């Protein structure tokens, strides 16, 4: 399994060989200033990252500043600037229109008013400019891995750069303003998907706990109401299945080495001394079987568990309305 934080390195390729002698002695030969004076250039747009959660109007301020700077330098926008500002446009007509707009904006550009100047400094202090893109990416994967509210755990993945408090502040702001983040649907979907996985394991753990509580002697009487599909060839005996579940319960699903421990338990247990099939199962194979069994178990408790959550909510609501009516009744009595 590839770690979600893993970022594929760029492909290693052969560097273009540069045999030009002029190029080689470039630094030595061209000591002075370039002969031709630099053409005025369109200032680059100020970097603005949506994940830094800065004031949304700051971006338009930056644009205004940019056009003003261009006007100061006496620059006339061209097609390249259209491309860098609006992206690739295939329609020729639209391109020309956009160019006109650019030209207009530059010629109409005005310096900041005092209020704008004030807003700029204020808004610039607001966001999270110290959150880099990679840090943001790590934050998203960690939020999925541990669940969005597990700030301590998320911080652990960002340790050298961020403190718990920094992460907490950012997370709060992130969830409050998530719509402002570019591609937020994608990020949200990822996090929710990962959180589902954690919840599923918790769900299974709970189902297992309840199943065990039903049995006085699980080695004999643990029976699955929805046993594994009969379409597949059965290779584990029911007793072995029961033992797998007992071991899962004993060590817990969240333990990372649970299948190694299970393998050792199987080998240690004299009950399976001559069970060459069971003893030859590797942790991966045991995990596969356990996954199947847990899903069967989940099916059994699915209705029960979700119902629980719903009723819990309903009960809470009923309690509150009950309280309210009581207060109202008391008021009436007064």
């Amino acid at each position: 399994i590839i770690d979600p934080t893993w970022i594929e390195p760029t492909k290693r390729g052969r560097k273009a060989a540069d045999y030009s002698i002029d190029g080689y002695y470039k630094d030595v030969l061209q000591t002075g200033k370039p002969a031709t004076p630099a053409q005025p250039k369109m200032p680059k747009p100020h970097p603005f990252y949506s994940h830094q959660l800065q004031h949304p109007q700051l971006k338009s301020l930056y644009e205004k500043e940019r056009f003003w700077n261009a006007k100061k330098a006496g620059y006339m926008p061209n097609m390249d600037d259209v491309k860098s500002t609006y992206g690739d446009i295939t329609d020729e007509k639209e391109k020309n229109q956009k160019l006109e707009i650019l030209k207009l904006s530059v010629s109409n550009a005005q310096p900041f008013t005092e209020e704008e100047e004030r807003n700029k400094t204020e808004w610039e202090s607001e966001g999270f400019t110290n959150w880099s893109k990679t840090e943001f990416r790590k934050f998203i994967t960690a939020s999925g891995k541990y669940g969005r509210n597990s700030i301590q755990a998320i911080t652990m993945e960002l340790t050298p750069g961020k403190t718990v408090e920094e992460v907490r502040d950012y997370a709060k702001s992130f969830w409050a303003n998530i719509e402002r983040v570019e591609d937020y649907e994608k990020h949200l979907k990822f996090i929710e998907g990962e959180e589902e996985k954690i919840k599923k394991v918790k769900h299974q753990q709970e189902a297992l706990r309840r199943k065990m509580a039903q049995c006085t002697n699980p080695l004999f009487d643990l029976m699955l109401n929805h046993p594994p599909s009969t379409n597949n060839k059965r290779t584990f005996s029911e007793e072995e299945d029961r033992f797998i579940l007992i071991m899962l319960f004993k060590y817990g699903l969240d333990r990372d080495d649970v299948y190694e421990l299970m393998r050792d338990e199987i080998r240690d247990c004299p009950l399976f001394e001559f069970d060459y099939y069971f003893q030859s199962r590797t942790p991966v194979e045991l995990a596969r079987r356990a996954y199947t069994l847990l899903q069967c178990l989940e099916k059994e408790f699915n209705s029960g568990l979700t119902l629980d959550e719903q009723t819990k909510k309903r009960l809470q609501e009923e309690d509150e309305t009950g309280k309210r009516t009581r207060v109202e009744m008391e008021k009436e009595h007064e």
Partner: protein
Amino acid sequence: TAASSPAPENQEPPLTNSNWSPNMPLLSSDFKTHHSVISRLKNPNMKPVIYAGDVMKIMGFVNKFYQFFDGDLLNLSFQNFEVGLDLYPGGPVGEVAGIYDETKQRTLLYQDYLPIKDVVSSQDKMNLLFLTLLKLTFSQSKSGELQKTHQPLINLDQMKAQKKPFTMLIRQLRSSARTWGYPKEWRTNDVSKEQFFMPKSKLFENDEIEEPVDPKMSEILTPNIYQWHHHEPIPLEEDPLQLSELERDGILALKPRDRIILLRVMVDWCGSQSPRIRNEIYHLSHTKRDPSFGVQTQHAPRHLVEGSAVTYAQFRKLCSIVQSRYEIRSKKKHVKKQLSNGKKEDLSIKLKILEEIKQILKDMPKEERDQAMVNLYEKWEKLFEGELPDNPLSNPFEDEVYKLRQQEFFIGRVPHIGDFYLPRLHAYPDEGIINTYVNLRNLKSMHAKCANGEIDSLALFEKNGQVMSTQFKVLYHDTISLIRDTAQGLPTLGKTYWYEMCHDTRTLKEFLDFLDCKIVVSENQSKDLQSTEASESGPQQEESKDESKDESKDESKDESKDESKDESKDESKDESKDESKNGLKDGPKNEPKNEPKNEPKNESKNESKSELKDEKGKSTSVINKNPLPKESRFNPARNKLRFLKDYLSEMYDILRVFENLREQYGDTKPSQRLLRRSQRRNISYGFDSE
């Protein structure tokens, strides 16, 4: 053309909803409510053997996957392991340093009373076994395909010819063994059991999280992250696998106890790592059909689980069902038409066979009919074809479907006592040798031949008898305690569930006499027994239901008791129960609630008595000659003990011949010249004895 709703007498009786296989599952739940009392079996030949399970596991592995092992390993006896690895039975902890000899008044080692040649030969075999397991684990060649023929990876001569056969393989083993999982004996236990799993150790962060950052989803999924203890192998300097002598001397470089541990864990590693073994296991676990009793953890031949009488009875029952199936079918309209048209050739042949059988049985006197049914097995077998894959009398070792989970060494399961095993190799390869792993009918005839001398040691010698284990042990497995401990999650490390009951034909005879003491019943009970036996399985099942009822009460009491006291108490309780029953006649049955209340009183009274008795007993003899308690719930146990006794007394003659073979011929391989000479010698034998 057939009628839409056939009349009931026109319906063929079903065959599928019953288990007709020659094997029976061995379920843990058989012993669910039982309680074993080891002292019941006390006798001078009974010794706890801590390594017995390991030896049997290795023998079972060699036996099942014989095609990878050399012939020199396929005739291993339990004793070869003991002599070869310097292991001595008797100690519950496994630290016995020899066998105490009463007459010489000192402890003897194997080399003190065995020819040194024999000791060395066993040691060589152990090293060959070790080397084969190593090679098998790491051998990649032909790993993709299934090995069908007997192709040992290495033999004794090849091993001896190599200068350093172990070096490279041991180094390979060292580099991967730790990730494959070390055996429990070679792990450090510096963390207590509770510390190990219940409370999570090493808190990564010291507190939980307060308020959620996203109010819409307030659940905190990871309140904390924990680190866990792992199973740690012992430090390198104490690790037996790191011993440098291992590369040179092989398995003998280790301490005796570690030797058997290493061989056992090699079997584990080999099973999970060797591509060839994994192929084989995959093949055996993915057979086209399943046994009719489903996939069970383990199973054993029917005639050993249920006794030969029941097995024969089941066969006869099956015959009558098959017979009526054919008869009903042949009467059907469309079948008749097809038959008269000459279609369905196979059916008409089968019907002819059935007629033959009926004719033969008709002419028989009634008393002989049962036996005749069995004697006509070959004819019946043809009738079973197409109806069901096997029958109670077919060879339990023949069908691949049964191989993986077959308990080849199993010889009997006795309620309230446990299982018995007789480990001898060579259950599978069939080379026309004289083998005891055959179907029930052949085993009976083989016994007859051994008993009347038709098969003697010379006959065995001629027929390559030495490819089988020539020595044996009968072992008792306290499965009941084991299952109880496992179900309760109690530690099993360091406990012994294995006991040697005998180790040669002389002690086997003593064991058979001993079994007689246990089977003895009073007059009243013998009537009971007869009735259960006569009606075979039906009433027996009913009985076992009753049994489980009154035992569930029993169990709740037992569990509350202290482990260590269990043994002696239970024994005294058994006896006390007898007395109270005699006094009350059938009182307890009418008032079941009284029973548990009465018990403790009786117990406390009787305890001191029985202890005294015990001490007296020790001074006079160590044999517990007491029969099993008289209660009816022990009747099935008596029954099963009788089956065990019957089986072992039949095996006695066979085992004796093998023992003679070893004494007279040792390891000599039969050759043309030798055979002629030994045959001549045999004549003078007869002359001498006359």
